[in-house]
């Protein structure tokens, strides 16, 4: 243990003293936060240039309501209620008579105007839009623009047209305004957490509203931090061990320490570096969220699990990487082995969406219990707003401990044999030989 400790201290100091460590410590949160900051900046810096449209209303019903809605929008909605500052674009609409004879030519001419950026888009409202049932009815609302799929403005037109159509339909039924409102009232579903009992006071706690932040952001951020910690500490083991092998440092040390002690000293050094980073990020995150009054977002009960799983995950991937590093002779070998080595960390990244969408579903539950994926997937599920049965993280942890013991054992065997062998290409067959035949 003393020798592992001595190796650990050297590894740790060598890693944290480097410029790249300090830079990554600062850069990574900036990059992570940068995405969100960019989103907020984009929200606050909307394009306020006027947008020009042409509307061809085949129904003849929507011209007046649209004009009214445009007037309200352009004179009130696009200005800040307190400062009066213009915060959104005005929509300038030219209403054009439909050219029934030359409909295609009209569409082409308007498309050209959009292409030349004279217009932002043109809209066609179908003739039978009010009562779209029945055969051969032409009920449509078409929005022609260069990027119509991403163009959120089309929803403004959709809302105005549909709201007015409903009002007209209500009027046709001779309903007054109050009845019409009653008829058209729409209720949004609210996502709620569960009602709990405070363990200290014994009082029943009200269920809290869940939101996107809680159900997506928290698991996502924890996953990213874990991924980053593994990338930072376990992945460099490969090149570091390869370098020590090629520069013959390994043999000098192997006169004093066993291959297992050597490998563990290195992997523990990696864990130390990761825990330092994690402690800094988590502390900074907790302080920031407290400062912003968003402390409810901090998944306090998940954090111990996060740390335990992260340590085991780094041990699992790190020992594998160190063993693979011992089999490499040059950068080419290292490149070809890095990808399979980091697969346990990468695969869960592709499964974020289905796991977060249904954290207790069969897919998420099964993957969370497969040891190489347990650390990331289990923590992601635990940090989501649903409650995971308590046996799952415990069983997952036992699985991870067993699997990690196995990878460390296999890793040490490969490491022991491969570290002194020069010039042998690391193939699956040689790895198998090193691991099981020595």
């Amino acid at each position, binding site marked *: 243990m003393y*020798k592992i400790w001595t190796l650990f201290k050297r590894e740790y100091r*060598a890693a944290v003293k480097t410029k790249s460590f300090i830079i990554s410590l600062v850069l990574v949160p900036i990059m992570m936060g940068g995405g969100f900051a960019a989103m907020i900046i984009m929200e606050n810096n909307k394009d306020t240039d006027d947008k020009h449209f042409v509307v061809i209303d085949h129904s003849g019903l929507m011209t007046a309501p649209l004009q009214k809605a445009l007037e309200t929008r352009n004179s009130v909605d696009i200005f800040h209620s307190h400062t009066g500052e213009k915060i959104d674009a005005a929509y300038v609409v030219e209403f054009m008579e439909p050219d029934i004879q030359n409909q295609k030519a009209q569409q082409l001419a308007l498309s050209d105007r959009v292409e030349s950026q004279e217009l932002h888009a043109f809209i066609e409202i179908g003739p039978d839009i009010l009562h779209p049932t029945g055969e051969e009815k032409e009920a449509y609302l078409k929005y022609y623009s260069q990027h119509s799929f991403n163009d959120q403005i089309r929803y403004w037109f959709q809302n105005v047209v549909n709201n007015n159509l409903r009002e007209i339909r209500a009027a046709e039924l001779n309903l007054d305004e109050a009845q019409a409102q009653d008829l058209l009232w729409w209720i949004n579903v609210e996502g709620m957490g569960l009602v709990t009992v405070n363990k200290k006071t014994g009082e029943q706690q009200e269920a809290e509203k869940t939101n996107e932040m809680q159900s997506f952001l928290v698991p996502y951020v924890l996953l990213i931090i874990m991924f980053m910690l593994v990338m930072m500490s376990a992945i460099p083991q490969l090149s570091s061990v390869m370098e020590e092998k090629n*520069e*013959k440092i390994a*043999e000098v040390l*192997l*006169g004093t320490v*066993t291959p297992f002690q050597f490998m563990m000293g290195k992997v523990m050094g990696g864990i130390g570096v990761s825990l330092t980073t994690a402690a800094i990020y988590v502390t900074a995150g907790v302080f920031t969220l407290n400062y912003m009054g968003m402390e409810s977002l901090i998944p306090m009960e998940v954090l111990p699990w996060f740390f335990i799983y992260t340590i085991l995950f780094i041990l699992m991937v790190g020992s594998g990487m160190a063993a693979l590093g011992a089999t490499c002779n040059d950068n080419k070998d290292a490149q070809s082995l890095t990808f399979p080595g980091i697969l346990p960390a990468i695969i869960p990244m592709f499964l974020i969406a289905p796991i977060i969408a249904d954290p207790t579903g069969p897919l998420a539950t099964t993957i969370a219990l497969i040891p190489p994926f347990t650390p990331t997937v289990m923590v992601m599920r635990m940090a989501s707003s649903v409650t995971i049965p308590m046996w799952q993280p415990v069983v997952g942890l036992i699985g991870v401990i067993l699997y990690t013991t196995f990878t460390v054992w296999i890793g040490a065997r490969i490491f022991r044999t491969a570290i002194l062998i020069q010039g042998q290409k690391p193939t699956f067959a040689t790895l198998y030989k090193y691991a099981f035949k020595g």
Partner: protein
Amino acid sequence: MNIIELSGISKTFGSVLAVNDLSLEVPKGSIYGFIGPNGSGKTTTIRMIMKIMYPDRGTLLVNGQDHNFERLENVGYLPEDRGLYKKMKIGELLQFHGKLNKGSDLPRQINYWLERLELKAYKDKKVETLSKGMRQKLQFIATILHQPELIILDEPFSGLDPINADMMKDIILELQEKGATIIFSTHDMAMAERMCDYIFMIYKGKKVLDGTLDHIQNEYGNDTLRIQSDMGANALNGMKGIESINNFGQLQEIRLEEGADPQLILAELLKITRISKFEITKPSLNDIFIRIASPERKEAVNV
């Protein structure tokens, strides 16, 4: 008492038999020289003693104990391929190696050895700033810093200039005086002759020589002549009783055929030239090495 006892050790790499049924006893407090051509099995033997590799067969005792998979304590090891962390400062590196080897009184020991090997001025410099020879000296300090009782040096003199090689030789002898046992492999036969109490030669994985220099030389008898004459090597042309001539220009070293009489050769030479030196002697270690590992011998062994 023997500090190391190898008996019937063999090691194969794939189809290559690197060490073949090797037995060896290294007495405590001795200097044991390992010689042999490149690829003969010296380094593999040393690695097995160090427990870096494990023999396929045979037993290996250090201080009377089989250490299995544990590391030997109180041993200093300088491998053939030197390797140091380039980014570490010299002082820190020595501290690290000293601690790893559980050395005591490290700061004082580090200062003493840096001073002794003329590296004191570099203590706070990084390893990468040192020349090859300086790195070799630094690695030597890292090997002996913890005052080990067994010191194993694989080619300790390679790459050193004569002054530094001499300095290292003095230190090795000093360490022996203080009670350490030293095993070193070398290609420098003169150094081995001068320093070693025992010499062991391995060739194609098999032990071919083992014993004191006298003992080894006695096996070959007085079959060597060293001659200096006015005619040089020309005087020996067509001379009977000579197996081979090693011509050094000013001096010719002659190996006699079995049963040849040196007095007859001297008489023949005196007829044709003036002799300034005529010495009947035992073969040098260098000569013995060449006799064993020469191409003719290789063919003989291969047959």
